[in-house]
């Protein structure tokens, strides 16, 4: 039962990734893309967690932790870049 639910949830999360990627490519301003990229990293961390449930492999949790860390660092770096007005 858990495997079936995990597969369904993976399909739903794939839809969420597609919607967020639409905003990432479309977004009118730079900060829209930053927000979309932040949400994309968070969603993919959750996707990895669900994938660990679906395959019964617990080693994928570390990937989710690392992805959450790197996504946060990317958001901070892009925001700093935008706040300086595009100058590093």
């Amino acid at each position: 039962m858990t495997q079936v639910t995990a597969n369904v949830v993976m399909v739903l999360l794939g839809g969420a990734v597609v919607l967020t990627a639409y905003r990432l490519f479309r977004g009118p301003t730079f900060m829209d893309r930053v927000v979309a990229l932040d949400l994309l990293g968070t969603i993919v961390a959750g996707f990895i967690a669900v994938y660990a449930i679906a395959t019964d492999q617990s080693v994928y949790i570390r990937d989710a932790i690392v992805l959450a860390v790197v996504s946060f660092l990317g958001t901070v770096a892009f925001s700093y870049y935008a706040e300086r007005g595009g100058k590093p």
Partner: protein
Amino acid sequence: MITDAITCGLLLFGALFTVTAAVGVVRFPDVFTRMHAASKSGTLGVISLAVALGLHFGSADIAIQAMLISLFLLLTAPIGSHIAARAAYLSGIRPCRESVIDTLGDQLDGRTSSSPPADHSPEGPTDTNSEDGAIIPSDQPLPEKPRG
């Protein structure tokens, strides 16, 4: 069996909130409301998925790592969205027309009240009179206008 049921419920709950966050990011009108959808709803959804992961494997090692994911998301989502919102405002993005309050803009303009960001007259020759009657002397140096 009961653990499986709780795990399935948490998985569906998390997927619902994550999809809601993605729909909000697509549908909301400006960057601040999009950030509101992404940070709150997305964080709750992924934390729910991480708790389901910890319940599914049922060992203390995995549960601690799942709690680490949850703790990290709870720590970084407010910080990240705050930094991104401030950077968006300071790089010249303004809230959409339907917004009714702009506290950071009032602080940057030197006012203490909150009023809509309607009529900023940056180089007014006389005293600026805001909506609620607060007088700002024109000899005060205006704050640096953000880049447009």
